[in-house]
């Protein structure tokens, strides 16, 4: 390797990366926003100094100022700080719900796809029944058994999204089991669990991360909606849906209480869905538009 190419390569890589970034500038914006969200989830105090729970009745319902960038709410709490700290609740609740849905959905789909016959029929029908209830109503039904609360909200949202993942894994398992290479692998005398673990599962779940990314957007809206109804975390938690519910009552005097958390939700869902769609387009070999 000559010295020339060494000095040439990084600059080429940089120019390629920057031209890619220019062509996909919305994606770059989305990814950077999500990085900020991740930072807000892990270490919110780096982004916002003020205590999200510290009330100050003398500074209630103030508009935006140098001290309070996005103003203060009805109790005088700093909205910027509450929105930043809210990322932790909103994102971790929806991510945990999706993890539950992915785990149980994959297992159910894999079992149905491998077993075929009556077990497959049973699982498929069960999924049909679960998905014949609208997602949010199903979640509300589950919460009515367990009562409101963060953990119950996660479980309810997660269970409601199981069918989506199970269906995809099931049909992919069918496809993979029919394919030539599994037949081939079978002739090597592999035991069934090894065959499934090493050869079937990786291909059956190939699309799951993409679905999970797109599903995360829906889960964030679902989390906000259910906490808006008072089914999730309880006041004074700084959670986006809960902040919207509180802000709804002060709309006349202080619109900013309800507006900023909503913008945070919309931007997050937009970024997540844009990345998910780009990923899906790449996976299917299409150009993203």
């Amino acid at each position: 390797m000559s010295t020339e190419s060494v000095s040439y390569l990084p600059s080429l890589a940089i120019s390629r990366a920057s031209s890619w970034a220019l062509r996909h500038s919305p994606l770059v914006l989305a990814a950077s926003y999500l990085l900020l969200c991740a930072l807000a989830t892990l270490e919110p105090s780096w982004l916002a100094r003020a205590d999200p729970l510290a009330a100050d009745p003398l500074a209630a319902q103030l508009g935006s100022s140098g001290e309070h960038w996005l103003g203060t709410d009805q109790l005088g709490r700093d909205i910027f700080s509450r929105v930043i700290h809210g990322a932790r609740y909103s994102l971790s609740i929806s991510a945990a719900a999706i993890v539950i849905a992915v785990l149980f959905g994959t297992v159910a789909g894999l079992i149905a796809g491998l077993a075929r016959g009556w077990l497959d029929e049973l699982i498929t029908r069960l999924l049909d029944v679960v998905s014949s209830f609208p997602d949010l109503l199903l979640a509300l039904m589950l919460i009515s058994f367990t009562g409101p609360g963060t953990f119950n909200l996660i479980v309810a949202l997660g269970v409601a999204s199981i069918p989506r993942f199970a269906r995809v894994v099931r049909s992919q398992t069918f496809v993979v089991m029919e394919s030539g290479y599994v037949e081939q692998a079978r002739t090597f005398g592999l035991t069934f669990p090894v065959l499934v673990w090493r050869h079937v599962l990786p291909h059956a779940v190939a699309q799951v991360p993409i679905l999970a990314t797109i599903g995360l957007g829906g889960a964030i809206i679902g989390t906000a909606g259910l906490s808006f109804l008072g089914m999730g975390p309880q006041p004074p938690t700084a959670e986006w849906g809960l902040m919207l519910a509180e802000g709804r009552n002060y709309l006349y005097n202080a619109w900013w209480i309800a507006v900023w958390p909503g913008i945070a939700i919309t931007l997050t869902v937009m970024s997540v869905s844009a990345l998910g769609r780009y990923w899906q387009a790449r996976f299917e070999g299409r150009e993203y538009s």
Partner: protein
Amino acid sequence: MNPPRILPELAAERTSHPALAAPKHGLRRVARGLRALPRSPGLTRIATGLLVLWAAVSLSFAAIQLAPGDIVSLLIGEQVSTPAIEAAIRQEWGLDEPLYLQYLHYLWRVLHGNFGRSYILNTDVAALVSSQLWPTLKLTGCALVVTIVFAVGLAVLTAGRRWGGRLASGIELVLASTPSFWLGIVLLFIFSFTLRLFPVAGDRGFASLVLPAVSLGLAQGAVVGQVLRHGLTRALDEPFALTVRSWGVSGSALRFRHALRHAALPAVTLAGWLFGGLLSGAVITEQVFGRPGLGKITVDAVLAKDMPVILAIAIFSALIYVVLSTVVDLLYLLIDPRLRERRTRH
């Protein structure tokens, strides 16, 4: 060395051989009998719908049985229990009977539209739900109109156009990512509090319906519009579009009269999802705008653990979903003759 494993295809062939597939027990014989029935896709679809509905009712019965704690205290909810109420529940649900009788009893009652009593509101559940049905139907109906008008408008105007398509894709992404209840709050602030064009809350005539319907319908319209737009773009690329244009038909007439019909087929399959979204959205939108309706009683019932009301609403929404998706599937069979021929399942 493991014994050679039978490939599933071979195994299937073996069992499907008449000599080998002697029915071992009654269930298999019933299944074979059902399979021998003349198969019409329409009948199959209706049978599947009924099966799903029965399972939904059974699932809600099982949920009550499996829920932690005593059934009586579960059904009473947050209300303070008195011996009289407990006796009424025992009698109504037949709790002293064996489980299978309770189940049949429950099925029988649900079949007759008897969903029991709410011990919190002290009313008949069926009467309560049907009294709150109309405001919610009005809201979802108007939201559906908004959805369709917005989706068709956006798709017809922008499909197959380079910058129009990009703009539409951006609008769809933003609207589909916006929680409908937050959109409602923003609309409420702009049009009710600031411009004072619409009433702030409640159910007072058509004017109070506009903002909730728009906030509920736009997010759904974005998703439907996306499907329509993709279908329309594809239809406009097909040879028939060129043929129609060669007859001297204008571009907009081609879009509205010819291409839209092709694009509508995939969008029609979204109907079940659309209904679920509208009903879920209505629950929250009603809270935002302080409207009466199913949403309000659902939220109140969940917070008070008013189980009979929750079960009734769940079964009711499953019923609508099943009826709607069955009708849509049958319509689909009517519209597209190619599907009538196909007999493969899944």
